[in-house]
């Protein structure tokens, strides 16, 4: 009963004379275009004494260029119904937006100007600084964020870039200067750190020409991206409790360091995580914690692709009285999968799901853009969507058992809980 997958992707890739990579995928669902500008300039590459700088740069980068004021930029985008989103993760700062096909060239021109010539006006830095501090204060009041950030700290240590909160701290944001922003932009926003993905109602070669024209004459060196510092695997159980008295519910974040996206066993880990905490409502974890014990609205695990050993994170939100029972249930599921691996049926169902979900994953312009950006970043190849089914189907029960055994062990789990006593 396996769904037949017909690959929809046929991306066009061009390396511009200045070294930038442009990928275009034509789609015909609606007269809209999504564009993603990704730069290898994420939090890994910020100075260790400037935590949060890459994220903060994302708040200011689109607030003025050498020739356009923040108002000018807002005018072009707002008038066309475009909301520019800047996201920052460990490795990449991404500018992304969707516009009507008729507005593609106008919006492209503004984004290219922002990427090349961001001016970081002092007045804008001060406005965005106050917003950033408010956002960090909001995070401090959020049980989910507090637990997740505490887990990152336990897993990687405060000094490792993967261990720090992406937004930094109030203290670090207060210290950022315009020079810090200009320096980060100068070092890490350059043609060779950039991948542009365009998906939508465009002609591929014409869109690539338009991008090439928008970046014509932009040639500059950049600092070599930083290698991920070594990660020391935890060998003993660690636990951290954050008390937040007025809250109704406690959030649990429980996890391990795992593997790099570049690791050849990545697909085995992906399948293993799906069985543990994704399949259906949330894999074995939700079956136990939500369906059998009725303790949580959400219980799941996630496993994000990273250059270095990324975290495998289990999350659940429960009544404060049920925290110990929930941790015991997580221990039981983690222990069982780590010890015994998955059943034949689980493996078959998960593979059928993951392979069958590829067309759905690649349905919207935004999801295609994200997929192609990831494929380019990790050098997975432009035909990755066509190779993926066979890569997944090659995963065996032994592979899943080995992946689970290498990561899942309650005796070395890190556990953070935020909520009432």
């Amino acid at each position, binding site marked *: *009963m396996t*769904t*037949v*997958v*017909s690959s929809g992707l046929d991306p066009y890739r061009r390396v511009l004379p200045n070294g930038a990579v442009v990928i275009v995928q034509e*789609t015909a*669902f*609606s*007269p*809209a275009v999504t564009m993603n500008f990704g730069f290898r300039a994420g939090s890994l590459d910020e100075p260790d004494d400037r935590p949060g700088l890459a994220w903060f740069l994302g708040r200011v980068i689109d607030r003025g260029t050498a020739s356009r004021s923040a*108002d000018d930029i*807002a*005018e072009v*985008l*707002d*008038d*066309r*119904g*475009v*909301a520019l*989103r800047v996201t920052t993760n460990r490795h990449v700062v991404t500018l992304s937006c969707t516009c009507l096909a008729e*507005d593609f060239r106008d919006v492209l021109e503004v984004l290219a100007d922002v990427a090349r010539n961001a001016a970081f006006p002092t007045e804008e830095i001060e*406005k965005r600084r*106050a*917003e950033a*501090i*408010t956002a960090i204060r*909001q995070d*401090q*009041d*959020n049980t989910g964020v507090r637990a997740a950030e505490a887990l990152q700290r336990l897993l990687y240590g405060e000094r490792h870039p993967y261990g720090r909160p992406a937004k930094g701290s109030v203290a670090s944001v207060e210290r950022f200067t315009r020079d810090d922003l200009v320096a980060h932009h100068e070092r890490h926003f350059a043609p060779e750190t950039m991948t542009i993905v365009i998906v939508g109602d465009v002609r591929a070669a014409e869109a690539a020409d338009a991008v090439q024209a928008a970046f014509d004459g932009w040639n500059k060196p950049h600092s070599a991206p930083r290698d991920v510092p070594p990660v020391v695997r935890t060998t003993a159980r660690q636990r951290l409790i954050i008390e*937040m*008295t*007025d*809250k*109704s*519910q406690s959030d649990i974040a429980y996890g391990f360091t795992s593997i790099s996206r570049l690791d050849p066993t990545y697909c085995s880990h992906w399948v293993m995580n799906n069985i543990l905490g994704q*399949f*259906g409502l949330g894999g074995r974890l939700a079956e136990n914690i*939500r*369906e059998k*014990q*009725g*303790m*949580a*609205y959400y219980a799941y695990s996630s496993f994000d692709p990273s250059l270095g050993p990324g975290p495998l994170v289990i999350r659940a*939100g429960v*009544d404060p009285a049920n925290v110990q029972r929930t941790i015991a249930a997580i221990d039981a599921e983690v222990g069982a999968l780590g010890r015994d691996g998955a059943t034949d049926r689980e493996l078959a169902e998960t593979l*059928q*799901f*993951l392979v*069958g*979900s*590829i*067309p*759905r994953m690649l*349905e*919207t*312009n*935004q999801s295609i853009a994200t997929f192609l950006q990831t494929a380019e970043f990790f050098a997975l190849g432009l035909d990755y969507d066509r190779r993926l089914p066979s890569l997944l189907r090659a995963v065996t029960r032994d592979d899943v058992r080995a992946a689970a055994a290498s990561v899942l062990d309650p005796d070395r789990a890190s556990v953070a809980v935020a909520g009432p006593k």
Partner: protein
Amino acid sequence: MRAAHLDNGLKLLIQELHTAPLVSVWCWYRVGSGDEPPGQTGVSHWVEHMNFKGTTNIPRDEMKGIVEKFGGTWNGYTWIDQTTYLETAGKDALDTLLFIEAERMARGLYEPQECESERTVIISELQGGENDPDQLLDIEVTGTAFRAHPYRHPTIGWIDDLRSMTRDDLYGHYRRYYVPQNATLVVVGDVDTEEVLRRAETHFGGIAGGTSPLRQRPAEPQQIGERRVVLEREGTTAYLKLAWHAPEARHADFLPMLVLDAALTGAKGLNIWSSFRGAPPQRRARLYTALVEKGLASAVGGAMLPTREPFLYSIGLTAMEGVALDALEAAATAEIERVRVAGLTELEVTRAKRQLRARLVFETDSVTNVAHQIGYFETVTGPGFLDDLPARLAAVTPAHVADVAARYLSRERRTVGWFRPLKGGE
């Protein structure tokens, strides 16, 4: 799009879209938290949860995995006017998805132990929402703005009702509302319309039609004076919410209000399933320039949602660190009063309409979102609402917008909510 009825009254809306080998099936019921009697608040949402807990021919532990075999995703949601269930999967799943929805409509098990287990899951969902001060404030403001109409209680229900409702309450609600006469089945994707009709007849044709329950809700009396609610709890950030009684989707004032909201806070569009998840374009919006750019608020949002009966237009503001709520409220009120007195400029109205036109394109970017819009408006407003929407939107003038601003956004029709954070130990 093809519209058809089975003999038992089930309405079918089918749209073929052959851009990807996918199908999205949604089954909509004309029941939501606005239909709940006192003492049973939250019953519609709890029933939605129970409808994933097993049917005569799909035991609970087999529900998980059926859609996944086709690479599919599934979900459901409940709001004030509607309850809906969806699956989007490879097109070969069509027959299975129709089978699931027919089972859900007619043959839910409602086993007592499953009802009990779900009670605590829902209480956990409620408590998770209470952890968020902004959400907590929204519930308090809505409850304060309405006195008689059942839109006043949150869709998840009041905690005491969730603790006291019984299996029979749930099952009674399910049997009353889950009948073909009260439902619409929407199918969008890489399908053949005739085949969908045949298969729908196979799966749903044998279900007794029932009757569509009358929706008689108490009318909300006209609000004659400002109302206020102040929450003080441990926290780090202050929030302000302003809410006014607003027209329902079918009212002639609805689109001018939608344009007004776009000009004040940025256009969201009309898809509450997807559009409201990302930030709208708002840097030129009135309240953004007056409050965020002036350093009084770190974020502003507006919600003018399409509903069956008059609901609320609300504006939510996050106070900037160090800004007092009374200063933020005064500045927001002053800007809204300016719009009430002088209206918007021609440019603002043109921009807002252009934004909305773009958002209507962006929010139908998948078979899932196309199907949502078809089913949502069929259920909430009745047929025809979407057909001439772009034309009606284009016809909105600055005079319309000025008129609705002056009439709806008055002080005596508003409810003001403050969340004032108490630092630990204060």
